[in-house]
């Protein structure tokens, strides 16, 4: 494992909102081809960490590197300089705050905790729009249909993708008319349409029953293989996490309290205290 290239490197990321430190000095590494999970109780800062990695929030301090290149970096400056509560405030000296679309263009695609499909559009169009960033046409060539070859290719790719994820029959349905599990699937398919090398899934199994969760576990394993992607996911369903993750990071109150393989995490006293113990009670 350790010989593999580093896909995503998060260094000392701190995210502070006013006086609240949502993520505190988080460092983590995802290697190429891995499935890595972030777990932790509600409010531990998992989604905030996701939002920092994907460029939705600029971190207060820290650096994110993707494929060995620094893509996000910030340090406490301006007003934040005085009110900064985190650690390592003098470690970084550059500001790099790209918008999420720039990171998507680099090969990072995500799904959302509360499904964010385009509601007024069909399943097919939802995926087709994700192909927009792969266009080579400008407004004029697109308006006068000089891009019809590219358009046809994109449409064929979308059909192929729909077949792989098993949504072929629903392609002309409104995205919101799909059952919940399929909406999740569609969101993953939409992210895959941007041809990412790193896929970030924010609670893909939220609200699913055990049967659906089982299907999803297989589905995630399958897309790692078929699309050759590295996967970083946030999840509360422990059977899913333990089943497919290569490594796990555990957050509590914004801090990293443990990381390791599923076996190590399940035996870790701190993790059982903070999180797992509660889950096991609830599930039995």
């Amino acid at each position, binding site marked *: 494992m350790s010989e593999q290239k580093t896909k995503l490197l998060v260094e000392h990321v701190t995210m502070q909102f006013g006086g609240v430190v949502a993520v505190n000095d988080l460092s983590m590494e995802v290697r190429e081809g891995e499935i890595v999970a972030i777990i932790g109780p509600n409010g531990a800062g998992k989604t905030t960490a996701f939002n920092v990695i994907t460029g939705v929030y600029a971190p207060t301090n820290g650096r994110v590197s993707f494929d060995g290149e620094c893509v996000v970096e910030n340090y406490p400056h301006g007003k934040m300089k005085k009110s900064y509560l985190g650690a390592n405030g003098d470690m970084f000296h550059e500001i790099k705050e790209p918008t999420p679309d720039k990171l998507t263009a680099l090969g990072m695609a995500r799904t959302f905790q509360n499904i964010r499909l385009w509601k007024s559009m069909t399943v097919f169009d939802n995926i087709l729009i994700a192909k927009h960033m792969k266009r080579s046409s400008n407004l004029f060539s697109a308006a006068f*249909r000089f891009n019809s070859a590219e358009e046809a290719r994109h449409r064929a790719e979308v059909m192929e993708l729909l077949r792989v994820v098993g949504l072929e029959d629903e392609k002309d349905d409104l995205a919101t008319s799909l059952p919940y599990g399929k909406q999740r699937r569609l969101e993953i398919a939409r992210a895959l349409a941007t041809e990412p090398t790193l896929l970030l899934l924010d609670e893909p199994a939220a609200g699913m029953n055990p049967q659906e969760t089982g299907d999803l576990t297989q589905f995630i394993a399958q897309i790692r293989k078929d699309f050759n992607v590295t996967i970083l996911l946030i999840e509360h369903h422990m059977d899913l996490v333990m089943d497919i993750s290569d490594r796990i990071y555990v957050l509590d109150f914004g801090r990293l309290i443990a990381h390791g393989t599923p076996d190590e995490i399940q035996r870790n006293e701190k993790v059982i205290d903070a999180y797992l113990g509660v889950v096991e009670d609830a599930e039995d």
Partner: protein
Amino acid sequence: MIENKSQKRKNAWIAFLCVLAFLALVFCLDQWIKPTDKLGMLLIVLQKGSVYALAAVSMNLLNGYTGLFSLGHAGFMLLGAYTYAIFTIPDKSRDAVYQYFDAAIRFSIPEKLSQHMGGFGTALGVFIALVLAGLVAALMAWLIGLPVLRLKSDYLAIATLGFAEIIRAVFQWSKLGPITNGSNLLKNFARASKFKLEIAGTKLSLSTFVPVLIATVSITLIVLIVNSTYGRAFKAIRDDEVAAEAMGINLAKHKMIAFVTSSFFAGVAGATLAMVLSIAQANNFKSAMTYEILLMVVLGGIGSITGSVIGSLLFVAASEWWLRGLDSGKFLGIEAPNIFRNGFRLVVFSVIIMIVVLFFREGIMGEKELPDLFRKKKKDPAKEAQS
């Protein structure tokens, strides 16, 4: 997939044939009806209606498809109208128009071109002036968009509304008189009532056909944009900005494209309005004009181009023609000079609009387009299985 494609082609044909039939009809009406006839009002409704339809569709591109609530339309139309007027005033009437100022811009594009190419040159010159009108509006939109497009919903509306008012004030400023003629009106430029086609000695009037043609071509262009990959990206931004950005759509860039494109066509609409009205005056482009256009968009259905066109034609027909009698003492054969006085039309008009908005929540068309009306209702597979 194949079914989808043939369906699409069919839709395109239906729309194309409807448009062609409409243009042919307008051309014939232009010959049959004299402006002094009883039906002369129909021509005026068609002229003004098509201009407003273009304005409404271009606003719909921004407000309905991209979800950017902008109220600067009158300002961009003003820019278009003035640009068109200034560059088409013939040399010999230049001094008469700028009677209080020394005109700074002294060339008329149609006149220059007609010296070399005759009648065709005039038409080409008018076309170039129209495109120029759109470009000036688009350039201004780009400049304003840089700071303003960062704003969301209501704030954007307020900022663009403010811009439109500033533009109007600036154009009336006497220091700019040599260019804009101050608060006086511009006239004598190339106008619709003078457009004629001469074939074998018979003169054919084009005074209604030309504005309708300009609007039709422009609206077709907007339809092509809306149905392209860019149109889909605009809709994605409208539906969910966060998701759109996460899927690689550059928000700043696409919002700017929508804003500039919409303003380009608003500029063309403004120029065509000047062409139809034969005058251009900054005072005509008040914010009330933006609200009227917004009303047409809402009446027709936000997010439907067909709706915007129908909405504007109905709006113009009602306010210019059908309800005229309410102002002049006689309406539907009832004579009541005490009630049907100046201003009563607007009262009735407002009530009608309220009723329409109350009972057609989504506008006349909702999000449907022209070809949707010809399509059979989609069969419900569940129901079919039962029977």
